[in-house]
């Protein structure tokens, strides 16, 4: 058997069913081996589409997503997606072809040192020098990608290794150690802190979903009655309709959530990491709060904020060990009242389409919808105004904020869960970053629903230029966009345009009931902004709000 066949066999043994990729010279032996394998290969139209789709596939299934590309330009096209998976702790295995080992280091055709280039953005990586190492490296790669705090693993495979003959067939079994329990002394300290807190808050991040600890988290939030705020990735850890849920915190968080955190005397940070978009100015973040930090990753403890108790290890065992007999009814009442007082208003004047309201209605009309996002104002409106019952209903490029994630993520989510209903909310800037993936939708008949929010500009950048650069607009105008309805149709995808508020209900109906892929091109006021907004460098209690509101 050849190295490439051994690699494919090892992937099969790992339980891989789908690979997202794009072929080329150095990876051809593997593509050849794929013709004799039950593995399903999804051909995207750009390697960035493949890696984003693999990322979303992993977020939905909880199993590592696999993507593949050739050497040189194929490999470099994966880089943004690998960084995305790194910053959002998503398990992916990226396999790249490489020039033959004899040519490595000679600036050969399509040679780049992808192993060196990606070191800062991988959890681990391998350069396979010997065909005998293939089973072990594949076994280790999948193990590393998913254990503890997940992340991307890169495997670079030189062409001569892929072509080398081997007798090897015995496959590698990776030992699977269990996750540890929290330190009893820290647990005792945490219990004491919770018992004596008057204004505790549960600050939940993406780690809860990743750890499979959603039931334990909900049970604890319910039993203790502690108010919950979430990061962008933590949305859905408790249903966003839950009365204990106060809102998303941070730069575009809710007024109620930010005040709740700022006033708290104990922050119980569960699977979150004090990211600057969540904390605002760090030295004024929850200034009077003690901190309990619960995470799978020891390096997060004390990285940005001093902790009073650190509970490392499995959240599923740590959460049920926390005390629930608290007397915080005054605090609960304050938080609930503030949530009501600052509830979103949807009575915007005019007859233009008010996107927050449209998004709210869409998610109310289909509670089981999975929403993938691109990056910008529309992404923040989704986080603010859609309801999520599970974390994996909301697939967003949080840590990297990579425009172009939305449509490929929609593809990955539909391949991962073919019966599901998936909506991609994109912007007129973002969609052009991976517009070619409309061809992938057509090829595999994927019924993705696309809501294209067109404000004829790079809205989020325009908003910052308006607010923080004295309205000096620089390179944000997109009024010469193509006709997106025609674009979609030329890819064989149904599409329609809406421009008036009275068309919104019909548009939602059509979008949600379409059997095939469909794109709704929704034109909104180019000057619409996202509110509230904590200006960069300010503490979270300094929130700008809409002037007229």
């Amino acid at each position, binding site marked *: 058997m050849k190295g490439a066949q051994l690699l494919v066999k090892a992937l099969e043994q790992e339980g891989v069913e789908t690979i997202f990729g794009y072929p080329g010279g150095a990876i051809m032996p593997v593509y050849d081996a794929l013709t004799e394998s039950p593995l399903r290969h999804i051909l995207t139209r750009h390697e960035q589409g493949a890696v984003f789709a693999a990322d979303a596939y992993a977020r939905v299934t909880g199993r590592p997503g696999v993507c593949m590309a050739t050497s040189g330009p194929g490999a470099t096209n994966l880089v943004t997606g690998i960084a995305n998976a790194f910053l959002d702790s998503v398990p992916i295995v990226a396999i790249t072809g490489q020039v033959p080992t004899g040519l490595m280091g000679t600036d050969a055709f399509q040679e780049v040192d992808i192993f060196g280039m990606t070191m800062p953005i991988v959890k*681990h990586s391998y350069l396979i020098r010997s065909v005998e190492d293939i089973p072990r490296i594949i076994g280790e790669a999948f193990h590393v990608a998913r254990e503890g705090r997940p992340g991307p693993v890169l495997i670079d495979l030189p062409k001569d290794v892929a072509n080398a003959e081997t007798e090897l067939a015995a496959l590698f079994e990776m030992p699977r150690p269990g996750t540890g329990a929290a330190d009893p002394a820290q647990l005792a300290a945490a219990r004491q802190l919770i018992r004596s807190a008057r204004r505790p808050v549960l600050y939940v991040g993406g780690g809860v979903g990743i750890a499979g600890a959603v039931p334990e988290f909900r049970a604890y939030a319910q039993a203790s009655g502690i108010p919950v705020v979430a990061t962008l990735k933590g949305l859905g850890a408790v249903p966003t309709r839950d009365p204990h849920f106060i809102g998303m915190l941070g730069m575009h968080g809710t007024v109620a959530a930010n005040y709740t955190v700022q006033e708290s005397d104990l922050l119980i940070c569960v699977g979150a990491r004090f990211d600057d978009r969540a904390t605002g100015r760090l030295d004024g973040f929850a200034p009077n709060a003690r901190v309990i930090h619960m995470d799978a990753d020891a390096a997060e403890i004390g990285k940005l904020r001093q902790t009073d108790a650190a509970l490392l290890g499995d959240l599923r065992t740590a959460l049920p060990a926390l005390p629930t007999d608290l007397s915080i009814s005054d605090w609960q009442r304050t938080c609930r009242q503030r949530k009501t007082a600052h509830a979103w208003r949807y009575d915007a004047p005019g007859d233009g389409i008010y996107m927050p309201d449209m998004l709210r209605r869409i998610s109310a009309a289909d509670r089981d919808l999975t929403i993938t996002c691109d990056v910008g104002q529309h992404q923040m409106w989704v986080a603010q105004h859609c309801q999520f019952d599970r974390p994996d209903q909301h697939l967003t490029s949080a840590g990297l904020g990579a425009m172009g994630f939305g449509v490929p993520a929609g593809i990955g989510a539909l391949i991962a869960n073919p019966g599901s209903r998936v909506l991609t909310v994109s912007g007129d800037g973002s969609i052009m970053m991976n517009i070619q993936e409309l061809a992938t939708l057509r090829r595999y008949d994927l019924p993705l629903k696309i809501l294209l929010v067109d404000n004829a500009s790079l809205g989020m950048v325009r908003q910052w230029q308006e607010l923080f650069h004295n309205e000096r607009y620089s390179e944000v105008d997109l009024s010469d966009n193509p006709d997106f309805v025609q674009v979609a149709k030329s890819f064989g995808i149904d599409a329609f345009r809406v421009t008036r508020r009275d068309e919104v209900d019909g548009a939602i109906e059509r979008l949600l009931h379409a059997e095939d892929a469909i794109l709704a091109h929704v034109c909104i006021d180019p000057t619409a902004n996202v509110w509230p907004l904590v200006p960069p460098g300010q503490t979270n209690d300094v929130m700008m709000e809409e002037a007229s509101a």
Partner: protein
Amino acid sequence: MNHTLKLTIQRVEGAVIRTLGLIERRGFSVTSINTASDEASPHMEMTLEIHSPQRSVETLARHVEKLFDVSDVHLIAAHAPAAPMKESVAC
């Protein structure tokens, strides 16, 4: 003031550069390196003197510990644990 990190790392491709890259990327400069290995051993001992005006060396040590190729980390910090970052650096 310099901290000392004594590491045991696997002798595999990329392990040295990966470790040094992580240390520099996380805000430390390396002021001295000593390595020792024995041909027959799959491991290598590495002693580094490192320095940072602001960052916590304990946090760095935990990042280094996570590297798959690093099997042992021993930190001799030059001072009592530094407070975590306080400056507001976000853009």
